[in-house]
């Protein structure tokens, strides 16, 4: 083993190469690596954020959706209620109308019947008087037997 100045030469070379690496080789490369690392980390974080916001949006959407659904159901129910009310109202109105018509019709009929009865009574009494005049001659005049005639008419 010959130990000589080669040792110091190598020490010097070592120091110089380490210094070159320290100043000119390591920093630019490690900077690039760190930058990329940061970019990847940022990207991942952004993706996570996007994921979160997507989830949030989905949640909001679901909420809105269920709210809208509930509203729609409510509206439908109301509409149904209203419709059935309208129908029942209309039915009731129609029923009363029909009753009204019916009652007025029956009244008219009754009136007509009464009128006809009155007319008939009139005719009958005249016919009786005529007949009686013919039978009895002058003995009976309408003026003399007015009272009698009225009585007979009311009995018919």
């Amino acid at each position: 083993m010959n130990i000589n100045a080669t040792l110091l030469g190598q020490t010097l070379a070592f120091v110089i190469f380490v210094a070159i690496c320290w100043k000119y080789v390591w920093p630019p490369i490690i900077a690039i690596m760190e930058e990329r690392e940061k970019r990847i980390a940022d990207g991942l974080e952004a993706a996570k954020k996007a994921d979160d916001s997507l989830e949030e949006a989905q949640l909001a959407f679901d909420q809105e959706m269920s709210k809208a659904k509930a509203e729609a159901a409510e509206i439908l129910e109301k509409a149904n209620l209203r419709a059935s009310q309208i129908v029942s109202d209309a039915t009731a109105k129609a029923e009363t109308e029909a009753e009204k018509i019916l009652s007025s019709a029956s009244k008219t009929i009754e009136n007509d019947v009464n009128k006809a009865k009155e007319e008939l009574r009139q005719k009958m009494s005249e016919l009786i008087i005529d007949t009686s005049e013919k039978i009895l001659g002058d003995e009976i005049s309408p003026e003399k037997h007015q009272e009698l005639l009225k009585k007979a008419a009311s009995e018919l």
Partner: protein
Amino acid sequence: MASASGEQTSAEYIQHHLTNLVCGKTPGGWTCDHNAVDQMGFLAFHVDSLGWSIFLGLVFVGLFRLSIPKLSTEAPSGIQNFVEMCIEFVNDNVQSIFTSAKNNLIGPMALTVLVWVFLMNLMDLVPVDYLPTLAGEVAEATGMVENSKDAYFKVVPTTDPNITLGMALAVFVLIIFYSIKIKGLKGFLAELTLHPFGKWMMPINLVLEGVNLIAKPISLGLRLFGNLYAGEMIFILIALMLTFSSISIGLLGVGLHLIWALFHILILALQAFIFMVLTIVYLAMAHETEDH
């Protein structure tokens, strides 16, 4: 390989592979002559180890710098994937060990250690004779040596203890620097002297902790050196089989070389990884304060 084996004994062949190209200062001035190596003192350089080491360091820096203009946050491709994979791997390791303290030097240093040491180890997979033979031919052709056999060229830097201990020394200096910076000189000295036995046993504590401290860089450097040196040695021994004039031994050598190379890939990567992890661990220990 080793074409003119007749002139070379096995021992010489191995020795040739384990000898560095040395340039150093002799009393007569600077020289790269192999025959003058004995006269060189401490002031000598293993030109081959150091040259490959610096070249591979430049490959590392160049490769990583090359990717920077093409960096994109959108769709990384090709070299950026490779570069980012390395950095992420290193960063994960640093962060798992450096849990509380923060130091932005550790990551770049660990990356440099991992890739650089791995590249240096990787030179072990180049067949042992290629580059030395090439270097010998070049040296002979350019007239630097008379015979290509006289040119010595050791390729794998991490099989040279100067290289591994040199890096360990830098780590050691950083350990001491951060220990003092984080804990203060007092805190560092207290750590060295006040435990495990309390203040009445200071000398013993100092010896124990001192050994503990010194052992870190030495074991760090020698572990890498030992593993790679042994691996290289086995490659040389297998290559030696191909110098015999027997076809069956030669074929066996080729098979063994393939098996050992495949297995060695694991060792190369593992040793580079271990060197990096230990560097991080030692520096993390230097940053720890509420230990005692």
